[in-house]
């Protein structure tokens, strides 16, 4: 196949990150993503029907109006009018564990989360959805209330840049505080490595869900956290708690992989049980593919 035009959303995240700052990367990713999507990823959510138009190749069949097809044997699709009062809040975990990468050639989890958050915010704001940002570690570090006015995306990006890598994570405390900030029903997108107490965090997320929020969780992991590798014998130290353990990666790799799989499965099951969308994302996954998880 001849090489097509470069689509940043499908390139390796580390390569994309080398092109420039968060804004450039996010814009490039979003442009590529939207060009390939033909429609808004969030269309259909919190919007109302406005008119019909003739079907064009590429339109999703689910929006085909079957009644008109039955009556006139012609293909029409239904179009919706976007609302402007959708409130989205993007939550980015800025704990110390997020500032880690398995190899220097990859983005840290935090860098990946920042760029993904910026891209999400740009998409939402282009849909004229009010979008805000919260960064947190043990405490809530940055809070940008949801806005739709011009300059909001720049503020969100600035907020991401201005949030330093934190210390340990106590996400449930931060999430509980967020419940007070998110009084109106909306969408909450959490970007985190979820290296904290699952039950406490789930309690907070359940509460958001109970308040009517649509909750989406991006579980971000470095590939090296999924497949254990390293020297024959090594002391691994938790950068947050300084707890260390001496292991032989080769002989523990299988058991570790099983543990990680179980952990992911546990998160996925628990989230599904409470109506929370859960997506496992590794930092070598192109941003476009990560965004596509939302469609």
């Amino acid at each position, binding site marked *: 196949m001849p090489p097509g035009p470069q689509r940043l959303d499908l390139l390796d995240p580390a390569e994309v990150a080398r092109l420039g700052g968060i804004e450039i990367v996010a814009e490039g990713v979003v442009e590529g993503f939207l060009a390939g999507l033909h429609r808004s990823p969030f269309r259909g959510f919190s919007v109302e029907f406005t008119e019909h138009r003739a079907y064009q190749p590429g339109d999703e069949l689910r929006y085909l109006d079957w009644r008109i097809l039955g009556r006139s044997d012609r293909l029409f699709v239904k179009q919706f009018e976007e609302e402007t009062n959708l409130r989205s809040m993007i939550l980015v975990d800025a704990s110390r564990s997020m500032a880690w990468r398995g190899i220097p050639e990859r983005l840290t989890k935090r860098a990946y989360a920042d760029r993904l958050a910026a891209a999400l915010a740009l998409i939402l704001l282009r849909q004229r959805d009010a979008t805000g940002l919260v960064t947190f570690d043990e405490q809530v570090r940055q809070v940008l209330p949801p806005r739709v006015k011009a300059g909001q995306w720049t503020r969100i990006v600035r907020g991401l840049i201005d949030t330093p890598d934190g210390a340990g994570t106590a996400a449930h405390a931060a999430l509980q505080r967020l419940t007070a900030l998110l009084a109106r029903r909306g969408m909450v997108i959490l970007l985190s490595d979820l*290296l904290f107490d699952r039950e406490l965090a789930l309690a907070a997320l359940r509460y958001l869900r109970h308040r009517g929020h649509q909750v989406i969780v991006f579980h971000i992991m470095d590939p090296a*956290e999924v497949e254990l590798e390293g020297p024959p014998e090594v002391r691994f130290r*938790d950068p947050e708690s300084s707890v*260390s*353990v001496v*292991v032989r990666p080769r002989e523990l790799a*299988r*058991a*570790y992989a099983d543990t990680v799989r179980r952990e992911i499965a546990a998160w996925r099951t628990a989230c599904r049980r409470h109506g929370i969308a859960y997506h496992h994302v590794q930092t070598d996954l192109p941003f476009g593919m990560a965004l596509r998880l939302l469609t």
Partner: protein
Amino acid sequence: MSFVHPLALLGLVAAAIPALLHLLQRRVPPELDFPAVRYLSTAERESARRLRLRHLLLLMLRTALIVVIVIAAARPLVRLKGVGGGGGGGGAHEPTALVVILDNSPSSGAVVDGRLVLDRLRVAARSSIARTTSADRVWLMLSDGVLRRGTGEALLATIDSTRSAWQRLDLVQAVERAARLVEAQPLPGREVHVLSDLQRTAVATGHAAVARGVRVLAMAPGRSAANRGIATVTVSEGAAVIALSGSSAPPAGSDRPAPVPVTIRIGGGRGGGGRGEISARGLGTGAVTGSAVTISLPAQSLLPGWWVGEAQLEPDELRADDRRPFAWRVASPARVTATPGAGSFVAAALAVLQDGRRIVSGGSPDVVISGGEAFTGARVIVQPPADPALVGQANRALAARGVQWTWGRPGTPGPVAAPALSVINGVQVGRRYRLEGAGSGEQGAGDVLATVNGEPWLVRSGNVVILASRLDTAWTALPASPGFVPFVDALVNRIVAGEAEVDQAEGEPRVEFRTRGADTIAATAYGPDARESDLTPATPANATAALGGRDHVEVLDGERFVAARFSGTRRADVSGLLLVLALVLAAAELGVATRTR
């Protein structure tokens, strides 16, 4: 269990390597940040028991692998049960002290069935030594009786270069020495391999004392051949007496041994070139040991002096004993006179010798026999004076002559001991003076010709012969004994001149002369020991009894000999099995190491 290379067991120290590596590796692991430690902890907690078991199993497997490899390198030997005689000598054996006695005495030069006996013995000796290992201690003994220690290669080279020697080997003594040597070695195996034609004469000297734990394996002799040889040649009274030895089978159709043609050839004498050669032939009546052929010599045509000759038999299976050189001295009768004090017995003996033309009288005497009074003459035989009061005067006369011997106080009675003068050996002496003085050298102890009670009785100093007793029946029984006249004959014709009898010695056939100044005083005729001519082998029972007894000795034919070697210490070399076990352990280690990753 024993080991071919026990030093290799030092490598067992390496068995600690896995444990040491384990400890060393645990000591300084690198430290890395890893956020998902909680997952690691969970995984380790859940698999801790399995990992501990795996570590223990791997440690055991690796340690066992090293131990097995090291032990295999040491080549362990395990005792085999039920080793029979058909093993062909295969398999390894425990470290063994081994003496291989290769009897290359003259009889090994016999040709039987077209093949040298020594060749057959050499093959067996080579085979024995080739079966030894570096853990064995090996000696090779040839007929010279020397125990040669060396590497297998060196001893094999020695065997290859071994030829039939002229020395006889007394197997009884040889086995006893060899058994003593191997018994002193701190090795589990002790064997003596006797590779000999096992002549009955070689095992006839007694019974070897063999210590417990020493095995003596003798290869049974093959077919023997009839042989006749020349035992000795002596010349006396104008005739050469050729004593025959050996064993001879009667010719087919006859129950009597065949006549033995003997040829003697008399060549140029000592320093007498140009005397020409004289040959003579005689016919023996058989070839059994003890028979003799007498051939007259043309005495009148032989000039005075030393003569050499050689007796020969017709060639047979053993050539070494078919010829033997001999020597004798042709001398003019001595002109002898006796002083009045010499005594009546001396005078009577001289009269007999004169009648027999062994001496002549009148004119200027060559030899004077004195009774202790003042003496003159070139050669003097001196008896102590009958009157003790004259002993001092006689001693001064001896001193004036330059003789260092003197008569001292009276000695105790006793028999005469004279190995070189058999005619007076054992004759009783009643009275005597102690002969004192002497020292060493030309006129010293080396000239003591006979002793009584260990003290000199007959000595020679230059041309003077001194007796400790008078030749009188009041002093000694010698004058009344049959050997008296031959003794006086020897005194006047030979002893006083410093000449000894012709000696017979073992060695390559030749004649050697001994000189004193310009005079030739003795000769030695060399040849093989007469017992080598008898090729009749000892019976297995006799050989077994002579070489150590049934508890120690096995006389075996060729195949059984080969099978019995080292059988007392035969072991299976299990290094191959251990290497297989090492492969299994390595495979198991690989499986455990990879399966659990």
